Structure formats: C-alpha cells, structure tokens
C-alpha cells in the first residue's frame, strides 16, 4: 500500500513538473475584455501549458494592480500618466492591442435618420448650452430632419472609465470652453446630465429615455442596434464610426507615433478618420523574474500582433494598422 502511494506521488510530481504549466495573471480594462478572453482561450488551445487569467476590473484597477505587483501585466483603455509611471517599481511598456471608437447615440422620437454632429454641437450639448433638439445649430447641420422641440436629456457615465477619458479628451481638444470648464479624465464633473453605470447603463438609459443622447463604445451601439451619429473630423468630413474609419484614425497617427505608444488619437488627421477613436493597451513590465514567464508573454504578444488581430472584426473591434504592428513587434525585444 505504502509503495503504491509512493509511486503515485512520484508520478504526480513528475507529471506536473513535466507539463510545467505557466500561469499568468492579468487585470485591467473592461472595454477589450471580450477580445482578450477570446485571445487567451485561443492561445491556450495552441499552447496548452500557457494559461492567462484575466480579470476585467477596470483600467484604474489594472494600473493599480500592476503597480502593486499582484498581476503579471495590466491592461488599460488610456495610457498611463507620468505620475503613475513614476510609481512603478519595474518600468512597463505600452502595447496597443485593438482600436475602439466612442459614438454619440441618441433616442429622439420621430427621428430615424443618422444625425450629423460637429465638435461644437457635441461640446454645446454636453456643456448644457444647447438645451433643446430644436436648436438652430443642430438644424443647420441636419437639414431635412424634423427635430421635436424637446429638451435634450444628456446621459454620461457615472463610473470612472476609459470611454469617458476618450470622450472628454476629444471634447477638450475641439472645445477650449470644455477644456477650461471640465477637462479630461476618466471621471469628470459633468455640467449636466444623468449618469449610467457602465456602457450598458448609458445605453440602457438612452434606449429608455426619449430625447436623450449618450456616448458609448461603438460595439455597444452596434450590438444593441442603437442609432448613432456621424461626427465631423479634423479634415472637415462627417464620418460614421466603423472598423475602417477607426483604423484610419490610428493610421493617420501612426506617422507621428511616439516610441512608447502613449498617444491619444482623438481628432486624428486623415480624410476618413473617425475623430473619437482610441487604442487600448497592454501594460507589460520590461523585466520578469521568471524567464519562462517572460518568454511565454513575448510569444503571446507576437501571436496577438499577427494571428490575434484576425479575431478583432468578428468581435466588433478594429484591428491595428500595419505600421503600428511593425513598430510593436520591435518593442517586444525590450521585454526581458
């Protein structure tokens, strides 16, 4: 009996050490959580000994966990600020993974067309200066649309989020009034409006409340079949958000991409660029104590930049443009 137990025990120990499963922990942004889960699942099927456990606790949470060292890498919808980077014990690299767009979605009784919004009208609505749908400024950009003269119900996010950061970052760039009165952050002091929790909360409130306007990730508007408007970009063209226009925004910014990939691509140059687009990043430390873990992560990053991008459009994310992918492949070498 004892001999059998001993053999069994040895076999188990040998067995597990042979497999040498690589367990990697990550946490962060909620927006790309769907595609990250898909990637980690697919990668695990190809490399059964690599298991990544991703918790979508929010960009802020991801950065906090990376700083305290409880996760191996983080994910964030917005680039880390300098003061956050200074708190890291091991410097981290930003790897853009996919692109997303933030769209203005609305629910106006009697209006089924796609509305056109200029930066001025969006800023005016969210500052509370444009109060009714019958305002002349909206009518001017949308001739032929019968607006009811009802009060606009503005909806925003009540929780801190990367989506809010992108939206307010865009408004700060196009409206000096917005920049001085409100500013840009994951959570701001909104002049007007109701707060919904999460993209789902905002989408839900807009769907339920007539005469409302809110901002959500492109994916949510598409999946909930909600109407969303075109926005005028820096080149002066009214562009509707979809995979190509969002990727164009990144391509437009690729030329001037900083080396650390910490860039905001809102209001990007480019004829067909959608102005309210954003990268989402993986935050990978430059140094790992476990060489196997470092190699596993590097291999994953290379797979993600090549085969992983193919999964993007089926899950309603925009893939990275080629010039950005090339630059990122070079950055992988910096992970030790």
């Amino acid at each position, binding site marked *: 009996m004892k001999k059998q137990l001993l053999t069994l025990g040895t076999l188990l120990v040998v067995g597990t050490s042979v497999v040498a499963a690589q367990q990697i922990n990550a946490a962060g942004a909620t927006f790309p959580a769907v595609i990250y889960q898909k990637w980690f699942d697919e990668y695990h099927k190809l490399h059964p000994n690599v298991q990544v456990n991703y918790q979508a*606790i*929010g*960009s*802020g*949470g991801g*950065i*906090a966990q990376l700083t305290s060292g409880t996760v191996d890498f983080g994910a964030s919808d917005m680039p880390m600020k300098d003061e*956050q980077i200074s708190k890291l014990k091991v410097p981290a690299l930003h790897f853009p993974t996919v692109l997303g767009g933030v769209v203005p979605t609305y629910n106006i009784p009697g209006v089924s067309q796609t509305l056109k919004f200029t930066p001025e009208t969006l800023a005016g609505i969210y500052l509370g200066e444009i109060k009714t749908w019958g305002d002349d400024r909206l009518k001017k950009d949308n001739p032929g649309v019968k607006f009811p003269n009802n*009060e606009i*119900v503005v909806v925003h996010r*009540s*929780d*801190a*989020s990367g989506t809010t950061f992108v939206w307010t970052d865009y408004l700060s760039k196009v409206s000096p009034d917005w920049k001085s009165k*409100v*500013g*840009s*952050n*994951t*959570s*701001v*002091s*909104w002049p007007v*409006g*109701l*707060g*919904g*929790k999460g993209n789902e*909360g905002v989408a*839900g*409130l807009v769907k*339920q*409340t007539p005469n409302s306007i809110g901002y959500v990730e492109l994916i949510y508007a598409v999946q909930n079949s909600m109407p969303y408007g075109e926005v005028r970009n820096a080149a002066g063209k009214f562009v509707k958000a979809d995979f190509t226009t969002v990727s164009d925004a990144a391509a437009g910014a690729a030329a001037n991409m900083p080396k650390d990939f910490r860039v905001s691509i809102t209001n990007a140059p480019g004829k067909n660029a959608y102005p309210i687009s954003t990268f989402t990043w993986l935050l990978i430390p430059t140094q790992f104590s476990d060489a196997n873990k470092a190699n596993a992560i590097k291999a994953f990053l290379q797979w993600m930049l090549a085969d992983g991008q193919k999964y993007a459009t089926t899950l309603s994310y925009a893939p990275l443009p080629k010039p950005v992918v090339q630059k990122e492949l070079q950055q992988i070498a910096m992970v030790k």
Partner: protein
Amino acid sequence: MATEAIVVTKAIRAKTQTGDTVARLVVLSFAASVLVVTVLLVRQLWVASEATRHAAGLSFLWSTSWNPVTDEYGALPFIYGTVVSSVIALLISVPLGLGAAVFLSELAPARISSSLTFLIELLAAIPSVIYGLLALFTIVPLMRVFGEPFLKSVLGFLPLFQGPAFGVGMLTAGIVLAVMTIPFIISVSRESLLAVPREQREAALALGATQWESTWQVVIPYAKLGISGSIFLGLARALGETMAVTMVIGNAPKIAASLFAPGYTIAAGIADQFSEATGRLYQSALVELGLVLFCLTIVINGLARLMIIATTRKGSRRP
C-alpha cells in the same frame, strides 16, 4: 457519609464553575469581537481617508463640488441625496407599512394574515439588485410617462415638482427604497402589534371605544417601541442601499430643488466610482464618504434612541 457528599458536591460545583467561567469568557469574546470589528472598521476608514481630510478638512462636509479633474471633493450633494431619498422612502413606507401591519394583526382573519405575512417576509429577502432591475424596467417608465407629469400638473407650483421628467431621479429612488423598506416595517410592526395583550384591547372596547379608536389610541401606543424599531430598521436599509438606488437615481452629484432631478447617495457614489478611481485624493475622498455615512448612521440612530426615550418617559407605556 456527609463529608463525602460535601466533597463530591464541592468537586461538581468547582467543575461547573470553571465550565461557567469558560462559557462566560467565550460568549464575552463573541460580543467583544463585534466591538473589535467595528473599531477596526472605523480605524481603517479614518486612516484611508487621510489625504482628503488633510487637504479639505471639515469643508469636505459642506462643499458641493465633486471634480476628479481638479481633485476637489465635497460630500454635501451625497449627504443631501442620502437623507432626502431615505426621508421620501419613509414618508411613503411608514403609513403604508403600518396600515398593512394593523390590517394583518387586527382585522384580517388568521389564515389570510399568516399567508400574507409569509409572502411579505419573502419580499424582505429579495436581493436589492433585483429590486433595482425591476424598478428600472417598471417604475422608471411609469414615473416618466404617468407619475411625474401627473405630479407636475397637480403640484407644479411647488419647486419640488418642477423641471423635466426623466423617469430616473430622487423621487423614483425614494419610491424604490419605500418598496424595499415596507416589508421590514410590516413584519416587525405586525409582531409588535400581535404582542399587545388582549386585555388592553378588550379594556378599551369595554370602555366604549370603537375598533379604530382602540387600535389607534391603545394598541399602537402600547407597541410603539417595536414599531419605532421597525421604522429604524427600514431607515437603516434605506440609508445604506446601493445597487437599487444607483440604477434609478440618475447619478449626478448635484443638489437640486426639484424631486424630479437626478441626485446621488453616498453608497451609490462609492459603489460606482471606487473600482476605477485612480489618484490618491480621489480614493481617499470616496473612503471619507464612507466615514461620513458611518457617522450619519450613528447620528440618526442616536437621535432615534433619544426620541424613543423621550416618548416612553412621557408615560405612553403602561405604568
């Protein structure tokens, strides 16, 4: 023989005395552990909110700005929202709950009373998130389409009922909280009313009182302690309610005169913002909100106790 008996008894007594002492210590430690947990909780709240306490001091309590961009935080809109939504909830749930409790204890036949009570106690056990979802899909549209326009047309001259009807807002949050506190009020009040001795009712009726007079002037004052307890239980739930409120209150940290306007409560604010709050000052401001809620609860409970002491001393209980 007698000395043997004394020795044996002494031995047994010694054993049972040690047993008693041990039992006393164990039970004392359980009670003390509650105290210890509370003290640790307050200490943690105090320590984690240090950054904002240093930066803003007492002005945190009356400042109305909540700006993560400029790092200026003030608790007044949250305190206002918490208090106002709870008051609305009590104003609705106390008459309804007490009335239902009176019906169930005094007027209903026993079988109906017990089955209804069972259903009501089931309601008290439903998780608050479900109430929130229910409210979002039923109460909010009803308020937006019927309730708020009706109130505006009838009582629109009051600043309380002016402004656009969103559906979500302070009034809807108060109504949802009322729905959640009514089961508590009904079940505990009913128990206290049933505990009133029959002699009291019979004496009142024998003296010529009507059934309503005997209920209102004899039975209810007798059960006042239990009824107040149920109200404060309901109030405690309303003050701390998080998920149901955050779905229907509109989540805007502003103080507005109108009940139709969106607002914010402390619990909803913390739940919404804490997980993604980056920045030491932001996080410590949210923790300080928690500390404020803790103190608010203590103050309200203290006032409640004082009120009970004052009213019972007046001699409304039996001599």
